[in-house]
């Protein structure tokens, strides 16, 4: 037993060997299992959102339309920590470059504000979470590995505590306007909430309206991006209506039309 009680033995066996063995089981092997899932950069995510015409893309265009003054300032905005660079005026419109920039800045401030201290980003397959955080028929999937394999989830933002609800399916739950009002003062939209207000993400535009500033616009883009890959495209974008559904769709349309009358 004498040898076991020496510095070198403890340092080598317990300190290094046991540690490496545990790391092998705990994360090296899981990483090996997941290695074939492609890793996406922020630019990839932006390109994907545009090509699939996801709600992240349409919401980003909405933000640019609602807040044109902020959007101009947003193109000029620079940040070394998140690597966001200036965008020349000729390209200052909703495109892959600006969307990627907004996601980067938004993610940086989402982390910096500690949003992840109270909002998780993981829907578990138990405890009715798929029912609570998804919208049945629109997005009710449980979290799966490939949706996290991107630059904005390194380190991953699953979180360990919920005070507020989960956000990984948020795109299907609230729209941009709701989010903008909510972030300015959560009590406007959610009476009784104990979420703090974030007025420093807002500024006054030339008409005196309170609008999101550069960081606020990015943060809203990031929040609206969460889960946008699970939201089915808007109705007018759906080209094919399956034969089995068409009768139902027709019936519903007629019913809605009659009600509207």
């Amino acid at each position, binding site marked *: 037993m*004498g040898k*076991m*009680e*020496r*510095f*070198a033995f*403890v*340092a080598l*066996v*317990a*300190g*290094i060997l*046991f*540690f490496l*063995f*545990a*790391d092998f089981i*705990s*994360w090296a*092997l*899981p*990483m090996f299992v*997941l290695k074939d899932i492609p*890793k996406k950069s922020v630019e990839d995510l932006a390109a994907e959102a545009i090509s699939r015409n996801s709600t992240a893309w349409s919401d980003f265009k909405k933000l640019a339309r609602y807040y044109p003054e902020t959007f101009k300032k947003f193109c000029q905005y620079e940040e070394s920590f998140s690597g966001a660079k200036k965008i020349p005026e000729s390209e200052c419109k909703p495109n892959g470059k600006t969307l990627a920039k907004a996601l980067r800045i938004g993610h*940086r401030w989402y*982390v*910096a*504000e*500690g949003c992840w*201290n109270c909002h*998780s980003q*993981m829907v*578990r397959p138990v*405890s009715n*979470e798929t029912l*609570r955080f998804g919208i049945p028929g629109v997005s009710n999937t449980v979290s799966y*590995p*490939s*949706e*996290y*394999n991107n*630059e904005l*989830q*390194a*380190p*991953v*933002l*699953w979180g*360990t*505590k*919920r*005070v507020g609800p989960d956000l990984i399916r948020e795109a299907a739950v609230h729209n941009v306007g709701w989010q903008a009002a909510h972030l300015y003062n959560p009590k406007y939209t*959610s009476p*009784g909430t*104990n979420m*703090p*207000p*974030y*007025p*420093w993400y807002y500024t006054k535009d030339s008409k005196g309206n309170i609008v999101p500033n550069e960081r606020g616009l990015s943060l809203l883009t990031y929040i609206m991006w969460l889960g946008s890959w699970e939201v089915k495209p808007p109705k007018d974008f759906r080209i094919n209506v399956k034969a089995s559904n068409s009768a139902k769709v027709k019936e519903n349309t007629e019913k809605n039309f009659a009600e509207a009358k």
Partner: protein
Amino acid sequence: MATNSQELQNLVNYGLVKAHVAMGLVFFIIVATMGFLYSLQLDDIYPFVGIEFLSPGRVRMIHTAGAAYGFLVNMFTGLLYWAVPRFTGYRILSDKLGWFMFFALQAAVLITVIGVLFLGMADNVEWGETPWWLDPIIVFWLLLHLMQFGAPLFKASQRGPLYVAGWYISAMLVWTPLVVFMGNMIPRFWAVGSGAGAVQSTFIHDLVGLYVTPVAWGLMYYFVPVIMKKPMWSHGLSLLGFWGLAFFYPMNGVHHFLWSPIPMFAQYSAVFATVAVEFAVTSVLINFMMTLRGSAEQLKYNVPLRYMYTGAIFYWITCFQCAFHVTLTFQKVIHFTDWVTGHAHLIMFGTFGLWVLGMAEYIWPRLFRKETMYSKGLSEGAYWLLMIGVLSMFFDLTAGGLVQGFDWIGLNPWIDSVNFSKPFWYFRSIAGIMMITGLLMYALNFWKTATAKTGLSAELRTET
């Protein structure tokens, strides 16, 4: 082992011990205040609404990262400067290096505070919220820490087997830089998504399990026999406890993300390893309780020893609780709830907090050549406030966590779970006030002891 007090004084650098322990206490009060501020946000009575750099989310990160680097690292390093030279019989590597490390550590904590509060440069690794560019510097600091304390341990083990405390501290010295490197660098630059989640969960757990736990048990194995003036009950149990912990503890991490997209084999292995750790922990606890046998009356008047045994019992409660709530069944209800917060506070404050306070209270009068602390009343009052405060917070949050968990499963409107939690959160803030008051009393006692003009005598004074 040196017996002469002059030799002992040459062995230990008193200045370094004093500086680290004092800064550790200062940061303990600061991070406890930060936690209290954050709890006010949960109560919806936050006093600094709309101030960007005092946003509750940022304050919470100072609470966690500050507890790790400001409070625990300072305290433990200070206590190691006292304990390691004394049980190995050799001085630390270099006093100059020690002072450099002291200032470097305070600078790192200060940079973290500025980075997180004012510059928005946090990192979303829980317990590793330090800006990512600071992490390599912390790893370098931990390598210096390895050399500083590795030197006396290595020299002593040339002469013969190391004492139990030495095993824990040797292993910790190697583990800590590896853990900090792994947890902060790999999820950012190499792994993404679920792989990163697996690394982060391993980090959350390893910083507790491979830094805080071994250094704290190492110090316990030194201080408890010294205070009671008798050896540990069983050497075999010491061996069993150490090697059980060393083998199973590093594998526990993934239990922080059960039911997540991490492959199930990793989740199952974490559950099994966690249950296995409880056996190792129980063997350690049996060893300490049997050592106490026959000396239990010392707990009545020896406050440092009482801190240590209270912490040890809390440690066992936490680990016993862990063996159950780590199962996938319990996780359905309690994951993401305040149950986990209560568990974390009982282990960090109730166990490690009380331990370092007890150890610091034992060495503090000795550092200033006093026989006893300034005030017995302050000392006792602080103990009871801290102990009752943390225990009531633990029960409160555990109950609150169950309410939240079942409310979420019941698919009630989200705001219901907030409203139902309010009474628990109010009570938690009150427990927080108790704990901070206890800490302030403790700090006052420290201040008075250090600055007392007359040598405080341990003998009973007769009032004139």
